[in-house]
């Protein structure tokens, strides 16, 4: 899901959004505070669990979108106004990323905290001998819902059409009456919302900490590249594939080297098939 956020922004801007990991983190923290506020001492059950998760996703997504907008305004739009070279975008995005996560570290403390759980995590069913816990079911369902929604938005709505238009050819799109600034901002919002929601779901399982965005973001990027960056469906497939490869590689290498495996895949894909599995164009595929 983070991969999709990346791919969306990338597809439009042809630039990696380095601050995406911090959008992810902000979603995680927002989710944490909401959960803390809403969940009392007793573990909720049934309908309230579903309600809480939906709330968490919405709040995480909203925060993510908000942070993404801020980043776009400050670190991207000012540069775009001036037609700065691409290196400048990269650097300012890195700056934004560093600024945000260290600010979070300062404000929220620099240690990991586990999120109050809206349910008791228990095995739901078994598949191929593997235990599937409730947490994964939650992630799976919300992921499918959100990605389907996104796919429809990009394919069918006016916003989706303008996103695709800008992705294909910004200059021509602006001649056709598409407001580039607006479209880019909206893309950031959609991408940010997805990232924030993903941050909440991730935090639900592993807790939140100010550096939580870094490794998932790197992996998401790998997934996006794997599926063909700028290609939404590709990113989804890439994400799945990467997850499978990582889980399988646990058999062959020590757990500490899983990140190395992910990174190795990234380099290999970039070298041998830089367009990914499904090709690069956002405009064409979505």
């Amino acid at each position, binding site marked *: 899901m983070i991969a999709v956020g990346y791919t969306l922004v990338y597809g439009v801007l042809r630039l990696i959004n380095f601050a995406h990991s911090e959008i992810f983190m902000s979603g995680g923290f927002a989710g944490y505070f909401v959960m803390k506020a809403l969940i009392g001492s007793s573990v909720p059950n049934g309908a309230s669990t579903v309600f809480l998760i939906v709330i968490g996703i919405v709040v995480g997504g909203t925060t993510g979108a908000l942070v993404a907008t801020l980043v776009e305004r400050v*670190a991207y739009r000012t540069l775009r106004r001036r037609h700065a070279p691409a*290196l400048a975008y*990269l650097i*300012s995005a890195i700056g*934004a990323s560093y*600024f945000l996560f260290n600010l979070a*570290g300062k404000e929220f403390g620099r240690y990991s905290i586990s999120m109050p759980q809206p349910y008791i995590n228990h095995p739901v069913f078994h598949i191929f001998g593997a235990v599937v816990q409730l947490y994964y079911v939650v992630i799976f369902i919300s992921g499918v819902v959100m990605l389907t929604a996104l796919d429809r938005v990009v394919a069918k709505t006016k916003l989706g059409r303008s996103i695709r238009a800008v992705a294909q050819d910004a200059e021509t799109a602006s001649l056709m009456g598409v407001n580039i600034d607006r479209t880019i901002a909206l893309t950031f919002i959609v991408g940010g919302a997805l990232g924030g929601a993903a941050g909440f779901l991730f935090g639900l399982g592993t807790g939140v900490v100010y550096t939580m965005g870094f490794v998932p973001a790197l992996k998401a990027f790998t997934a996006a590249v794997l599926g063909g960056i700028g290609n939404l469906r590709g990113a989804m497939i890439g994400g799945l594939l990467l997850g499978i490869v990582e889980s399988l590689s646990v058999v062959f290498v020590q757990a500490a080297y899983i990140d190395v495996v992910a990174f190795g895949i990234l380099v290999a894909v970039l*070298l041998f098939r830089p367009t990914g599995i499904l090709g690069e164009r956002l405009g064409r595929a979505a």
Partner: protein
Amino acid sequence: MIQSLYRNPHVRRFAISFLVVELVALMTGPPGSTEAPTSGFQGSYFEDSSFYGLFRTQRWIVFFTLAVVLFVLWSSWLAKGVAVRATTSKLLAVPRSITQRKPVRWGFMAAALAVALLLPRIVNDAFWHSAMTEQIGVFVLLATGLNVVVGFAGLLDLGYVAFYAIGAYTTAWMTGSLPMPAPFHGHYDPFVAIPVAILIVMIAGILLGAPTLRLRGDYLAIVTLGFGEIVTIFANNLYGITGGSQGSGPIPHPVLHLGPLHYVWSLKPVPYYYLLLVFLVIFLIAFTLLEHSRIGRAWTAIREDEVAAESVGINPLKYKVMAFAIGASTAGFAGVVTASQSNSIFPSSFTLQSSINILVLVIFGGMGSIFGVVVGAIIIQVAYSYLLHTPPQGYQPADLYMYLGALLIVMMIFRPVGLIPSKRRKREIKLSEAGEGHMDEVLTGDTL
């Protein structure tokens, strides 16, 4: 109503200045936790008075005043900025023409060198002696190295610290301080390790660069970032080779036997400072010569327009790999010095954060400008050491990266060429912003 208020430039400007000041309040405020996440504001709004931050008074009054001041300054800059700019450039024209003269430049360099030589005597303080070596000297060296990669060749390398780590670990290996036995079972002096470390680091640069430098700029940034992480992961987990997170064993100090000269380095930082200085001068001279050589010009050509450079017979990959290897060399040397000075090394000292830190030094000083990078690195590292030495209330060492991140954005928005820009770079950015080249390319950055 609200719409018109929002579009009113004065209201907007004030709102933005207020937000900026508020952010500063938050940044300089006391650290918080998840229990009290808004503590940055608690010092400003919710408490009557607070002793945190810039001024010892009621914070919100101070910051509100600051916001007003910022607003007024901004407005007057918009009104008179052009005139002020013209006057300053006129005023600076005469001193500038003086500093461009060769004897003045040489004289200035000699003076700077003399100050650098006498510095340990001028600032006679144990903390600053070690800061001079560990924080300032080493980082100036690292920044000049990264400048070759980022500044000259225009390649964004986010894993630069990996080379630094490799240099340090090579030293530990050569001196027999790692679980892995030293080559030929000898226990070499760190001086012997210097050429070996530089060589190994350059090979590492070539090995990393040769496959990855074909990639576009933003991919390259991610790949180098991953490389930096992987080196740390390996250093952390290969217990049999690197000692894992426990770090290396004790690393001996270098011993110099050169004819009548005989000197043994010890834990004292000042001798290391001089060692760094000697090599820094060598590297600086080498890089200055390099910048104006055929290779340096090739780098500039690639940076400005890779396709055009290729069409006039420059092999971009070859020169990019060269930039990587040459840039890495200073990191290798810095690694040797750090390793032998700090006695033992740990994987935790080579993090992504330091990579970004070095990048900030380069950007702040001015990409591609050797002099600018040195000055910028000194300024930032001195500020950092000062904050370490006498931290203001509420400051934590890790906050540094927050400020550095903010600095990166601010530099990119207001002065992308850096503090003391190189002439070539300045012209390039100006051209690019004037719309030279395809519009799409400039807007979305197809070339880097």
